């Protein structure tokens, strides 16, 4: 499955919210019923970093306790139009993904 990353900026009166959506199964062995004989391998995102103008502003640590296709949101302090924001993630298999956008 293609692990697509999307990044969106949502402006409200109170804050600038940065939302990252990754298409990812977030799978772990213990989530599946034992004895079904299903071949399951661990596959979940362990870390997601948010950057504002190449500077890390937040690091989210994820695990199988987060539902599949994680939608993660943080709020930015003093973000201005024209600023570059980026999200990058790494999963337990070492696969990586990132997306970036510019604040309008």
């Amino acid at each position, binding site marked *: 499955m293609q692990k697509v990353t999307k990044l969106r900026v949502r402006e409200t009166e109170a804050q600038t919210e940065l939302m990252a959506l990754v298409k990812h199964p977030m799978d772990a062995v213990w989530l599946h019923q034992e004895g079904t004989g299903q071949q399951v391998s661990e596959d979940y995102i362990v870390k997601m970093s948010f950057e504002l103008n190449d500077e890390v502003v*937040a690091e989210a*640590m994820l695990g199988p306790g*987060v539902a599949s*296709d994680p939608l993660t949101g*943080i*709020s930015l302090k003093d973000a201005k139009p024209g600023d570059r924001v980026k999200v990058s993630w790494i999963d337990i298999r070492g696969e990586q993904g990132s997306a970036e956008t510019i604040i309008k």
Partner: protein
Amino acid sequence: MKRRTLLKGALALTAGSGLLGPIPSLALPETMEVFTATSEAQVLKTLFGEARPIPDGAVRIEAPIQAMQGKPVPVKVSCVLDHVSMIAIVTANNRYPLNTYVKLIKAGGYYSTRIRMEQSSMVTAYVMANGDLFSAAMHIKVNRGGYGMHYE
């Protein structure tokens, strides 16, 4: 005969290259310990050390009061505190209670995510701000089956 040997060869090759076998995982050692902790107290001790959580109105947790089993539960944590350094979301009745946590380096005190819940449970948000630990909790009911008829 030729076709048979070819097939066998192809099968052996796929198995040998590890495509069918388990894939070795490379977890970050620092997060592995806390994500496999089996009690809420253990999670708190690993993440925040000796700090005692204080229930505080400054922390707000937003989530539905009930959810369908196997469906993601959206959780939003926001707070009006300054200098927030970490936010953690913990589901007490999950096998591994810690859902996720975020280290805020230069971001506001806000975190939103979608968590997995195995059964009805208290969901607690822990917020580290200025070296103090604050918390807010709510109970989320997980319904087995549809239409909210079968409550646990």
